[in-house]
């Protein structure tokens, strides 16, 4: 039989926390290229890494949120193309989410998390679109400005709907785990 978590040493708990963090990020990254039935809208999947950044930043400082955004953005760059970077958009998402002061204004439940993810997907999409329009490459690879924003309009909404619907899948277990950790720290 395993001992209850509250009897574990702080070091083991810390290690376990990092295993959970790294494991969940890896899981999110590996789910990105996957398209299961019900996980697809117009050929798009949910933005799992963005959901993870929101779940992480909700109860942390803006700096921690930005750091998580940069790290996960670089990973997503590795899985698509390094340019323009996802790190900028996800860092914005991390900062904004942390600054939301959720406890003060919004009830804590699935619906508010879904709403936050919805808004943050729109933010991240817009940052990517701005990056595309600002740093246009050479003539052979640049996309016409009008097409970027038409595409942004077409996809931002469906991407936001899909990500916000799937947000609780990532948010709920992570939140439970971190709440439990906090409770153990306070009671010891």
């Amino acid at each position, binding site marked *: 039989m395993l001992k209850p978590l509250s009897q574990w040493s702080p070091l083991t708990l810390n290690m376990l926390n990092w295993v959970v963090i790294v494991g969940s990020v*890896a899981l999110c990254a*590996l789910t990105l290229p996957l398209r299961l039935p019900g996980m697809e809208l117009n050929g798009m999947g949910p933005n799992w890494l963005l959901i993870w950044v929101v779940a992480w930043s909700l109860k942390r400082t803006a700096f921690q949120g930005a750091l998580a955004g940069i790290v996960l953005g670089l*990973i997503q760059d590795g*899985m698509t193309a390094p340019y323009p970077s996802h790190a900028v958009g996800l860092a914005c998402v991390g900062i904004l989410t942390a600054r939301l002061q959720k406890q003060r204004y919004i009830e804590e439940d699935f619906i508010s998390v879904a709403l936050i993810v919805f808004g943050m997907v729109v933010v991240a999409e817009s940052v990517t679109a701005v990056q595309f329009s600002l740093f246009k490459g050479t003539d052979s690879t640049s996309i016409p400005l009008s097409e970027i924003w038409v595409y942004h309009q077409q996809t931002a909404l469906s991407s936001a709907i899909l990500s916000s619907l799937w947000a609780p899948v990532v948010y709920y277990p992570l939140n439970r785990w971190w709440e439990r950790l906090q409770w153990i720290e306070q009671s010891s």
Partner: protein
Amino acid sequence: MYSPYRWWDRHRLQLSLAVISLIVAWSVRQTQGAGLLEVYRLITLPFQGNPTQQEQLVNARTWELEQRLAALESQNQALQALLKQPVVTQGKGTVAPVIGRSADHWWQQMTLGRGHLDAIREGAIVVAPGGLVGRVVSASDHTSRVLLISDPTSRIGVTTSRSRRMGILRGQAGDRAVIEFYEKDPDVRPGDAVSTSSLSSLFPPGLLVGRVESMQLSKSAAPQALVKLSAPVSDINWVTVYLDAKTSKSMVSINP
């Protein structure tokens, strides 16, 4: 009193962990996620599926047609050689399963379950039932990433098969693309087939790309045609990868 040592003692762990996270993420970005993709392939290995019976029948029929086509092609080449025309040969193809789609919808990519060890190199041409799909942009040991022709950053020199008008095809996400023609008044109609042109530097000539859906002659700069790509990219599970003769790197790997 404020002491930098005390601050360092308190934040040492967090800081080093943050730095480690940054370094790991940076290395993932620099290696183009090669390690992640390898792990992904291992996990999805049991779900990659086998061709069913119906598919085997279709495969047999396809094989028969391919053999007839190959015979005709070689006959064609022999005739062209008689006419002293430059001969274009197609390399040997590797069949690869599609194991993943693009990780972000701004890029139109797919991941294949074959890589370096199966002699797939950057620049290899990816073809599926229906026509051209894209080009390999990076490869790890067992996986490779394909930039689809529907990606907005991909450019292909194409020609219409009926009237031989040249243009440049640019992807528009999904299964749509746009051709910009060089001429002011191209003789192109909806329904015309579009294939890669002999001027394309990345693709061999004559590969089917799609079908013209509508014309937009009123565009300011150059007349445009909207094209529906012929390969059903979102439904295909298997593709064929050709190491094209035009990419010098892949030639080295075929004939060591």
